[in-house]
């Protein structure tokens, strides 16, 4: 089974399911080139109306027949999965849809404790797909609460403190990057997009294949020339376990100190034992992240 953890939600799927589209608040999974599951979510304030969402869906997809399903009429595996999710305190409303020869089943989930509203739908190739879809539905997790939030995507996994919000990400061959953001005020406002204003950026990167990248250089030289050439070389330290670490103030002046705009940076780069990759975690911005927190974040980051 593969675990997908992304921007506070999680799903466990068969290993043959892989992401074909990824957004900050949604992803589409496919199996052998065919879509199998789509997940979208957002945090809402106030009451959640399932009927309103079904109406909205029907309006947005005029050719698709969407009908709410009473839980008693749903297949048994689906009923069991809904019951499992409801036990965790979430509200679940199921629906079915059909378009020409395509059909599917889905559910709108709402967690009143966190305000998370989720729309999950499965593309059912045949009736035998329902048990698999039900198992995947039952695996749904809301990670909005807790001290740290996990993320796992494209063979990487890590944990970030819950106060950080997902900013940008890119998964290109050879270079994966996931960037989180924490505003200096400590809470992300709805008006300002992540990454704007004073705050701390936390980046997770993976470079591969390490054997090619480090062919005529070493990790310390590579880190300096590829990660941040502006980083003072004296900050970089080559630790014995084949890793490079740095910590310090990279931009400082009397004016910056007075305005509280000194830029702190700490980072760690290391080679993985498996996967022939270089992993890098960096925290930089206007707040000095406690070293213990940074250490915990680095320890959680790994190739799956």
């Amino acid at each position, binding site marked *: 089974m593969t675990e997908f953890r992304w921007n506070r939600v999680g799903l466990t799927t068969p290993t043959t399911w892989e992401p074909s589209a990824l957004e900050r608040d949604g992803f589409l999974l496919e199996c052998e080139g065919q879509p199998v599951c789509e997940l979208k979510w957002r945090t809402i304030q106030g009451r959640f109306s399932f009927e309103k969402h079904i109406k909205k869906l029907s309006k947005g997809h005029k050719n698709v027949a969407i009908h709410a399903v009473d839980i008693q009429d749903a297949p048994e595996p689906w009923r069991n999965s809904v019951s499992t999710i409801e036990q965790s305190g979430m509200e679940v409303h199921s629906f079915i849809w059909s378009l020409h020869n395509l059909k599917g089943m889905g559910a709108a989930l709402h967690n009143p404790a966190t305000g998370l509203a989720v729309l999950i739908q499965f593309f059912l190739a045949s009736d035998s797909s329902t048990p698999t879809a039900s198992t995947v539905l039952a695996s749904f997790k809301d990670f909005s609460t807790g001290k740290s939030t996990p993320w796992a995507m*494209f063979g990487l996994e890590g944990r970030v403190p819950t106060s950080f919000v997902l900013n940008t990400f890119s998964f290109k*061959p*050879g270079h994966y990057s996931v960037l989180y953001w924490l505003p200096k005020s400590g809470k992300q406002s709805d008006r300002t997009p992540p990454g704007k204003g004073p705050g701390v950026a936390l980046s997770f990167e993976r470079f591969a*294949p390490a054997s090619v990248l480090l062919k005529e250089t070493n990790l310390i030289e590579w880190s300096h020339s590829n990660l941040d050439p502006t980083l003072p070389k004296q900050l970089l330290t080559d630790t014995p376990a084949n890793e490079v670490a740095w910590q310090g103030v990279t931009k400082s002046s009397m004016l910056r100190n007075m305005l509280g705009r000194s830029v702190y940076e700490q980072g760690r780069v290391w080679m993985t034992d498996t996967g022939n990759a270089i992993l890098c975690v960096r925290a930089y911005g206007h707040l000095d992240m406690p070293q213990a927190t940074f250490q915990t974040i680095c320890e959680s980051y790994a190739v799956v």
Partner: protein
Amino acid sequence: MPLFKKRQPQPVITRAEALQMIPVRNSAVEETNLNNGLMEIAYPLSVKPWFGKIAESVGLWDKRPMIKRLELDEMGSFVWSSIDGKSTVKQLAEAFVKEYDVQLREAELSVTAFIKTIGQRGIIGLK
């Protein structure tokens, strides 16, 4: 303005079909092993007829095939040397995974991008 709206190109074949295609080298391509373990390939440049006529009329071209050289990096050299006229794109990607220990999807993207680039230059064909 629908008249001027650029249409999104639709894929002619599926991803699975594309991965089952077999790259075949152009017989006119010559390869040279460089001292650093990398490879350089020399391939005849296809000249557009209108450009050829102009170049010929001003004495810039004597109708001999123009040769262009392309130096491949380590991974490009590996994929090029794996193209044997029998292996499919998928098999090349799997060999790439075995050699460099990267993810299969990542290898498929890298290998297909490389094959597309050299295919556009007429260095290989696909069957």
